[in-house]
C-alpha cells in the first residue's frame, strides 16, 4: 500500500471510527470516498437529495446504535443550518467531512459566498470546525475529529481545503 492516497487513509480512519452509514451529496472531491463506500459491503452509502437529510440520517443511526457521517461540499453547508439543531439539542455525535470551494483558484464565483461563510456559519450553529490543508495529516485530523464527535457527543466538521482537494478545472 505504498501508493495509498490521503483519501484512502481518510476512509480507513472512518472505518477505524466504526462509521457504518455514510450519507453524501455527490462531490468530485469526495469521489474516492464515495466509491470506496459503495464497494464496501460493511458500509451503507446513502445518496441524498440535499445535505440536511444526512444530519437527520446520522441522528437516526445514532438512535439505533450505529455511527454515521456526512460527506458534502461547502455549498451544502447553508442547507444544513436548522437541521444542526437536531444533534446540538439532542446531544448527539455528528461528523461531517466538507470539501471546500470558493477559496483557492476558484473559477466559479457562485461558489465563493458559501465557501467564505462556511467556517463562521458552522461555528455559529454549534459545530466544532477542524481544517485539513495537507495530505499528510488529513486522516489524522479525521480520526481525531471522529473521536471528539463520538466520545464527547458533539457535532464536528472537518474542512478539506480546496488546495488539498485540488481546484476543479473548467475546460473550455
Amino acid at each position, binding site marked *: 500500500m505504498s501508493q495509498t492516497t490521503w483519501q484512502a487513509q481518510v476512509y480507513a480512519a472512518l472505518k477505524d471510527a*466504526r462509521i457504518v*452509514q455514510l450519507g453524501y451529496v455527490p462531490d468530485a472531491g469526495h469521489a474516492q470516498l464515495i466509491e470506496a463506500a459503495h464497494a464496501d459491503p460493511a458500509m*451503507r452509502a*446513502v*445518496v*441524498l*437529495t*440535499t445535505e*440536511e*437529510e*444526512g*444530519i*437527520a*440520517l*446520522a*441522528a*437516526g*443511526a*445514532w*438512535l*439505533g*446504535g*450505529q*455511527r*454515521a457521517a456526512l460527506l458534502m461540499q461547502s455549498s451544502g453547508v447553508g442547507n444544513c443550518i*436548522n*437541521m444542526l*439543531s*437536531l444533534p446540538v*439539542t*439532542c*446531544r*448527539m455525535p455528528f461528523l461531517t467531512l466538507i470539501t471546500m470551494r470558493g477559496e483557492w483558484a476558484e473559477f466559479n464565483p457562485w461558489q465563493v459566498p458559501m465557501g467564505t461563510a462556511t467556517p463562521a456559519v458552522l461555528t455559529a450553529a454549534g459545530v466544532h470546525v477542524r481544517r485539513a490543508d495537507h495530505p499528510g495529516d488529513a486522516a489524522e485530523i479525521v480520526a481525531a475529529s471522529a473521536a471528539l464527535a*463520538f466520545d464527547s457527543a458533539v457535532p464536528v466538521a472537518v474542512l478539506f481545503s480546496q488546495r488539498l482537494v485540488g481546484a476543479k478545472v473548467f475546460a473550455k
Partner: protein
Amino acid sequence: MRNDGTLDRRAVAAALLRDPGDLLVVTGLGAPTYDAAAAGERPLNFYLWGAMGGAAMVGLGLALAQPRRRVLVLTGDGEMLMGMGALATIAAAGAPNLAIAVLDNARYGETGAQPSHTGLTTDLAAVAAACGWPATVTARDMPAVEALRPRLRQEHVFAVVRISPAELPRHLPPRDGAYLADRFRRALDVGGD
C-alpha cells in the same frame, strides 16, 4: 381545494399505535408529536420538536441501524412537504422495515391553519409512488385506518391519512432532546456506545 378529511387525528393515532410492542416510532414536529404522546408515552417514541423536514430521514437512519425492528415515522403534511426529497432518498436506499404515515389535515396547524400544498395541488402519496415507493395508501375512513395498521408494521409503505383540520388540545411529551435520545437508546439497549 379538495374536501377536507373528517377523521379525528387522535383516534387515528390511537388506532395506528395501538399495542405498539417494540415498534420504533419517530414523530414529526407539531401535532403528530402530541398525537403520539396522547396515544401512549413510551421510551421507544422519539419525538421531534424541531428539525422540520427531518422525521423521515431520522426514520431511515434508524431503520438501517436496526434492520430487524420495525420503524414507523408519524408526521404531518407540512413536515413531510419540507423534507419531500427524503421520499426519493428512502426509496433509492431501500428500507423494507420502514413505514411512513402522514396525518394530512391540509393545513399548517401550528401556525394558524394556513392551507398547505396538500390542500391545494399536491398528492403526497402520488409523490412517494413517483419516487419509487413500492406501496402507497391514502386512508379516508376508520376502516381504512384499521386496515393500514398491520401494513405499517409489515411493509415498506407510505401512507397518507386524511384527517380533520380541527385543532385539539396539545398533549405535550418531554421536549428535552438529550433526554429523549438517551432513553430511546437505553430502551433499545444500545446506550453503551
